[in-house]
């Protein structure tokens, strides 16, 4: 005990660390960068000739200013069956002559009104995208959640492979039309 070794007191270390921790806990907002991603079409070119689509290759979904839903001309209250209906339409492959010829030609058109709420818009868009992701995931042989996970990071070659396999021959053709001008 003749020599005392020089020492920094480190009992308060934990306190300091806790203080910092509390600061970050309070100020933190974990960034929410998740959502439904879409690609907007190029600006309208007036010189471009109008392209006509066959009615049977279009699946029309309309929502009016009071958030009521019209699917293929029929009013719909309960949306739980909508996803299956869209999937059936996309994967028809000409078996029903009144439905789509093949997935590449099939287009889901989604028209809203200026008075439609964003909540309703997102709900329906979510269902349409759900139908496509289900089909893609099926074709790639993975679950829906795993497929979306892979699609989020295509820089990884295995993810890219899954992503491309799922999308092959089935483009996500969701056409979001300009809203009508009744409400809003």
């Amino acid at each position, binding site marked *: 005990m003749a020599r005392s070794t020089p020492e920094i007191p*480190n009992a308060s*270390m*934990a306190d300091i*660390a*806790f203080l*910092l*921790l509390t600061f*970050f*806990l309070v*100020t*933190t*907002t*974990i*960034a*929410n*960068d*998740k*959502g*439904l*991603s*879409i*690609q*907007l*079409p*190029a*600006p309208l070119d007036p010189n471009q000739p109008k392209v006509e689509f066959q009615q049977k290759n279009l699946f029309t979904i309309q929502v009016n200013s009071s958030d009521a839903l019209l699917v293929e001309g029929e009013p719909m209250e309960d949306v739980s069956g909508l996803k299956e209906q869209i999937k059936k339409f996309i994967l028809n492959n000409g078996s029903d002559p009144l439905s789509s010829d093949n997935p590449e030609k099939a287009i889901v058109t989604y028209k*809203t*009104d*200026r*008075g*439609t*709420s*964003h*909540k309703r*818009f*997102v*709900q329906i*868009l*979510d269902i349409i*995208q*759900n139908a496509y*992701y289900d089909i893609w995931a099926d074709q790639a042989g993975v679950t*829906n959640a795993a497929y*979306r*996970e892979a*699609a*989020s*990071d*295509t*820089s990884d070659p295995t993810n890219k492979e899954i992503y491309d396999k799922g999308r092959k021959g089935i483009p996500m053709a969701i056409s979001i039309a*300009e*809203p009508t*001008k009744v*409400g*809003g």
Partner: protein
Amino acid sequence: MSKFKKKATVKQDIPTSSMPDVVFMLLFFFMVTTELRKTNIDVMQRIPEGSQLRKLQRKSLVTDLYIGEPKKTEQFGKEPKIQAEDTFIEVSGIILWVTRQKDLLPENERDQMTVALKVDSDAKRGIIADVETELRKANARKVLYTVKQKKIEE
């Protein structure tokens, strides 16, 4: 005698020397995941829920636009407004705003810029469609509607 002595020397404290390490680990986790908010959001943000979410790959390419009813309704009225950074902007100002945001990005990545639309549930499609039209004109065509994960799936 020696037998009793042995029993008495058993230590009873919990070792606390690793406590700072544990706390530091937590600290680092929060430091890494944290994002100090740059802006005060002055519009309502009740984000709608959905199930088919996609994560964005590159955070640096994302810019936010907030749309919703202003929080200070007595000052700004009840009509939904568009907020970019710290100020309200008009629909006509979006092209200029997009150009400015693109200038901040490296040249080879400008076409990959994604606009995250953080829209309040009660906002109407009309204003969002106007914003989309302007974004198309400004050639910022990647759009993400920010949506919260639904709690129960299926």
